């Protein structure tokens, strides 16, 4: 009759016919390593594999040893799989956490050609050649070869493959607030959430699993445990229902609280994959929390012994989970190897799930008689004071060797017990999950009674409760949870009652015996793995100690202990314990490395959220953007702005179009959209005084309706920005700032007004987006304006250079400023942004008889080089002073201004400073590239003496020769000198002559025409 219960269901030959939180009515088909299997709704990928007797799931990182499923949770070091194909493929997914879904495709990582026959396994045979630090020691010389080695090494030590295609899914961000965040939905967290929730607090309960319950989900069902008089599943169902009904309680399932930051901000990643169209794949929560209750539980610690990594070696609690929660038997014949009482319960329940229990091997000399008796009832041989000294099997465990210990840290002479088994349950105690507590700047202390680190004190509003404090029995967990929930509710302003769910107290366990690594028998050289994911062995830790990498931070980096994607959840404390023994210190004295976010891996997609592709940054378009688009303009991104770069005609490229546009401006007329220039409106009775203090030149006496070019310094005396400012009225100015600097200039002006000179009655505001501006330039530009219906007189007498007038143009209220960046006769037209396109079209229409054409920023760039005008970046480069750029005489000596004092420092007034000059190619045509270095003799020995460098260069279509601006040491004294401009990157050398940077119209006759 007993055998009936093990009836095969499909091919799930290791699935029990009863029990478990799985839905046998919903079979799911999945593919693992190319083979088709069946599992059930409620499975994880790991539990479904176990139900199908698949234990070999991967190869280890360094030695390529066969590895199996070791845990049933986020701490899994071995069962990392690549899930999905193509763009949605995701590496390094823990099979122990991944909910099974129909059609799931997953495969092992880090093996080639297959997980069963992996050529990388040779590294295990050759492992004496690969100690810790091997790569550092071996492949670093010669240094130039590291790139080559690294490429090969990475290929062998694969950690899964990221997809190359764009991610088709979307990810959301959520910013929220709550009074109480409960991290962990186990018994402690449920009691806490219930208590705080009943009090009316806004509670968020985050649980990494898709079901609430934590360890309660792994209780035997039916079992003897009662909570509030109910069976565990009944209590969980009732509690979940009550929490869901509480209006202010929000439950986040499949959500990992992965980071804890200042001011109680916690980040959580919620997995929503498979939830249907329109649902994000993952959602990143930023929660600002009043009180955090850390109910994160504990993670079982494996024992460290010879060949402790064969598929079939599993945490005792994990095997219990697979049997009880998933009704999946992780083997047929089990051996328990433990140092604590808690593991006996797991072993008994595994046996009750239908496995033979062959033996119980306990590191302790004395075992509670009732426990020993219970184990014998299950048929187990009980071996106190013994240890597993070796294991056997390749792709699956088939046996272990147990021997007595001599009580002095060695293996006693005595009989070898060879025990046949395919499942080895290992338990070395439990490590509280203190990671978030550490993120929150909390300090942990070593608790000798459980031989593990527990939270001690923390400056932030976080209260640990339950197993994370080392309280591993259910009654304590429920009580601590309720107390923490009540305290958190009270601290956030709610009246709360402490009514913990009632349950039987467990008998007090006997003390565990910490054994950080089980000794090897004489003559054994077997590997004892501390960190399974990174293949760090006891010998690696010993080597680190011998080579004096004894600090935990050095130990970690030298051996890579705890540096895998599991962050050492099963290995850190064992590693510290081993190092402590070598140094004669307790683990508490050795201390832990600093835990840092994320607790579990977070995808880049979740971090980026919606800010990808077109949503990465806002796009700013000028009011005339649609016109440029209709004309087929090519655009360029400048900051967030999209500007028309050139308007190609008949298959022209950038160079041809820009040269044509430049010639056209100098010979006829052109219209350029300059709406992106920053505009700052400055008003107030002290506005003129304010401008006097921020510009090097004077503005107090600027007449109304006049423009003036101004240069602004930083406080350290370096040029910051430049632009034209117009006095619209006595106390009203309009400042233009460069496109790139507009926002920062406004901020600096505000800062100066609010912090330095609060006594000035001035207000500043950005009006950039309110204006549409266009620059009309060229000898025929006045003809164009005069062809427009306007009340503004643009004759040279009425509006001389730097003049301004307001009126209407083509019926549109507008301003005309007679300013020019190109050096031609030019007018800047400005109107309200909404009228921009109408004004632009009116100007283009009026200009048709004169031959007006649009020009883009590329032509503008060439025009300004021809004129020798400087721009932010190439010439205003963050190191040049006003004098360096030829503005020395502009700087007022009659008034102070920002930067006036420090610009007088000897270093900034030195006569050998680099000064702005022009360059022409001696051969007339060779390209002078921006960034070329200037030297007197290209054949001088290295290192050459650099005289300066090329700032901007172009081929001037008007001069029909190659010209450039440059910053040259004592450049103004070196007119007509011949130098070489070198670009070793391009293997180019151009002979150049130093000239004035004003290549065109140095006297300014055109501009004043």
């Amino acid at each position, binding site marked *: 009759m007993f055998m009936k219960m093990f009836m095969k269901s499909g091919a799930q030959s290791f699935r029990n016919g009863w029990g478990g939180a799985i839905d046998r009515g919903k079979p799911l088909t999945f593919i693992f390593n190319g083979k088709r299997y069946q599992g059930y709704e409620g499975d994880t990928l790991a539990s479904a594999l176990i139900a199908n007797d698949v234990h070999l799931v991967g190869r280890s990182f360094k030695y390529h040893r066969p590895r199996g499923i070791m845990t049933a949770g986020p701490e899994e070091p071995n069962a990392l799989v690549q899930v999905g194909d193509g763009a949605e493929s995701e590496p390094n997914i823990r099979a122990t956490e991944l909910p099974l879904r129909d059609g799931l495709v997953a495969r092992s990582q880090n093996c080639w050609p297959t997980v069963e026959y992996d050529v990388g396994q040779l590294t295990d045979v050759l492992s004496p050649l690969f100690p810790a630090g091997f790569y550092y020691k071996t492949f670093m010389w010669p240094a130039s070869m590291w790139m080559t080695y690294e490429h090969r090494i990475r290929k062998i030590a694969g950690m899964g493959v990221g997809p190359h295609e764009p991610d088709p899914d979307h990810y959301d961000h959520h*910013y929220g607030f709550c009074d109480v965040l409960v991290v962990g939905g186990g018994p402690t967290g449920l009691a806490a959430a219930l208590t705080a929730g009943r009090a009316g607090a806004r509670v968020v309960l985050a649980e990494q699993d898709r079901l609430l319950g934590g360890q309660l989900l792994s209780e035997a069902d039916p079992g003897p445990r009662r909570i509030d008089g109910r069976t565990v599943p009944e209590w969980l169902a009732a509690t979940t229902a009550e929490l869901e009904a509480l209006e202010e309680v929000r439950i986040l399932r499949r959500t990992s609280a992965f980071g804890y*930051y*200042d*001011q109680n*901000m916690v980040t959580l990643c919620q997995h929503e994959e498979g939830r249907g169209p329109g649902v994000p794949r993952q959602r990143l929560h*930023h929660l*600002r929390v009043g009180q955090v209750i850390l109910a994160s539980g504990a993670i079982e610690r494996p024992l460290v012994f010879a060949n402790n990594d064969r598929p079939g070696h599993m945490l005792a609690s994990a095997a219990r989970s697979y049997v009880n929660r998933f009704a999946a038997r992780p083997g047929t014949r089990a051996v328990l190897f433990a140092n604590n009482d808690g593991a006996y319960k797991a072993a008994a329940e595994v046996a009750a799930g239908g496995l033979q229990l062959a033996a119980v091997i306990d590191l302790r000399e004395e075992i509670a008689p009732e426990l020993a008796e219970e184990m014998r009832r299950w048929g187990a041989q009980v071996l106190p004071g013994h240890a597993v000294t070796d294991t056997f099997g390749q792709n699956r465990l088939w046996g272990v060797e147990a021997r007595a210990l001599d009580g002095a840290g060695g293996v006693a002479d005595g009989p070898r017990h060879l025990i046949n088994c395919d499942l080895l349950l290992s338990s070395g105690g439990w490590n509280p999950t203190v990671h978030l507590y550490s993120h929150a*700047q909390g300090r942990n202390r070593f608790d000798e009674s459980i031989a593990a680190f527990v939270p001690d004190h923390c*400056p932030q509003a976080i209260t640990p409760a339950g197993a994370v404090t080392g309280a591993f029995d259910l009654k304590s967990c429920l009580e601590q949870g309720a107390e923490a929930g009540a305290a958190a509710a009270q601290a956030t302003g709610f009246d709360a009652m402490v009514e913990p769910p009632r349950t039987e107290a467990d008998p007090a366990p006997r003390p565990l015996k910490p054994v950080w690594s089980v000794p090897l028998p004489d003559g054994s050289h077997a590997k004892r793995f501390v960190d399974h994911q990174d293949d760090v062995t006891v010998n690696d830790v010993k080597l680190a100690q011998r080579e004096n990498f004894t600090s935990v931070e050095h130990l970690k980096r030298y051996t890579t202990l705890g540096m895998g994607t599991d962050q050492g959840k099963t290995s850190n404390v064992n590693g510290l314990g081993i190092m402590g023994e070598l140094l004669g210190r307790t683990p508490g004295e050795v201390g832990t490395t600093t835990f840092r976010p994320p607790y579990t891996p977070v995808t880049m997609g979740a971090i980026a959220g919606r800010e990808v592709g077109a949503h990465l940054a806002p796009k700013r378009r000028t009011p005339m953007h649609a016109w440029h688009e209709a004309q087929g303009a090519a655009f360029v991104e400048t900051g967030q702005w999209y500007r028309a770069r050139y308007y190609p005609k008949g298959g022209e490229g950038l160079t041809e179009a820009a040269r044509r546009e430049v010639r056209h401006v100098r010979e006829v007329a052109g219209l350029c959209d300059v709406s992106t220039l920053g505009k700052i409106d400055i008003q107030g009775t002290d506005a003129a005084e304010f401008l006097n203090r921020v510009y090097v030149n004077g503005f107090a006496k600027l007449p109304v309706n006049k423009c003036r070019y101004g240069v602004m310094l930083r*406080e*350290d005396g370096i040029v910051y920005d430049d632009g034209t400012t117009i006095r619209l009225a006595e106390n009203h100015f309009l400042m233009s700032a460069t496109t790139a600097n507009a926002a920062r200039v406004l*901020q600096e002006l*505000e*800062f100066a007004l*609010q*912090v*330095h000179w*609060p006594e000035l009655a001035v207000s500043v505001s950005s009006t950039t987006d309110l204006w549409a501006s266009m620059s009309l330039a060229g000898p025929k530009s006045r003809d164009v304006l005069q062809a427009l219906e306007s009340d503004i007189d643009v004759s040279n007498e009425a509006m001389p250079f730097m003049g301004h007038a307001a009126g209407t143009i083509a019926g549109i209220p507008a301003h005309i400023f007679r300013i020019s960046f190109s050096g031609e006769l030019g007018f800047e037209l400005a109107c309200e942004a909404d009228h921009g396109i109408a004004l632009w079209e009116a100007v283009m229409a009026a200009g048709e008889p004169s031959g007006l054409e649009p020009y883009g920023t590329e032509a503008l760039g060439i025009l300004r080089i021809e004129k020798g005008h400087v721009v932010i970046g190439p010439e205003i480069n963050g190191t040049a002073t006003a004098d360096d750029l030829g503005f020395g005489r502009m700087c007022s000596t009659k008034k*102070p201004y920002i930067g*006036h*004092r*420090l610009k007088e*420092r000897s270093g900034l007034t030195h006569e050998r400073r680099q000064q702005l000059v022009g360059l022409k190619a001696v051969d007339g045509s060779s390209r002078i590239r921006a960034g070329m270095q200037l030297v007197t003799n290209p054949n001088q020995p290295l290192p050459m003496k650099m005289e300066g460098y090329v700032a901007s260069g172009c081929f001037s279509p008007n001069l029909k020769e190659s010209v450039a601006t440059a910053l040259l040491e004592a450049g103004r004294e070196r007119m007509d000198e011949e130098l070489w401009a070198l670009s070793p990157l391009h293997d180019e050398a151009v002979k150049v002559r130093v000239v004035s940077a004003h290549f065109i119209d140095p006297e300014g006759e055109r501009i004043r025409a």
Partner: protein
Amino acid sequence: MLEIPCPYCGRRAHTEFTYMGDATVSRPADGPEASDRDWYEFVYVRLNPKGPHKELWHHTNGCRVVFEVSRDTATHEITGSAKLSDEGEAAS
């Protein structure tokens, strides 16, 4: 992400603000009464205190006012903020 209490707008995410430097330095007088050393120290010399400190922050994506924030550089705790013009008026 920190929250900064703007004296005008209340608590806001720090991404709305721009750090504008040490609030304990002030710009020297423009005239001859300030020495070159005063100017050098104003532009270049900053203490790097561990513990309570006063900083200037600009509420760039808000009211655009510069105000003073009291922050502990060791714990990141923000203990208050004050308007520049209205000394002592704290917000939290």
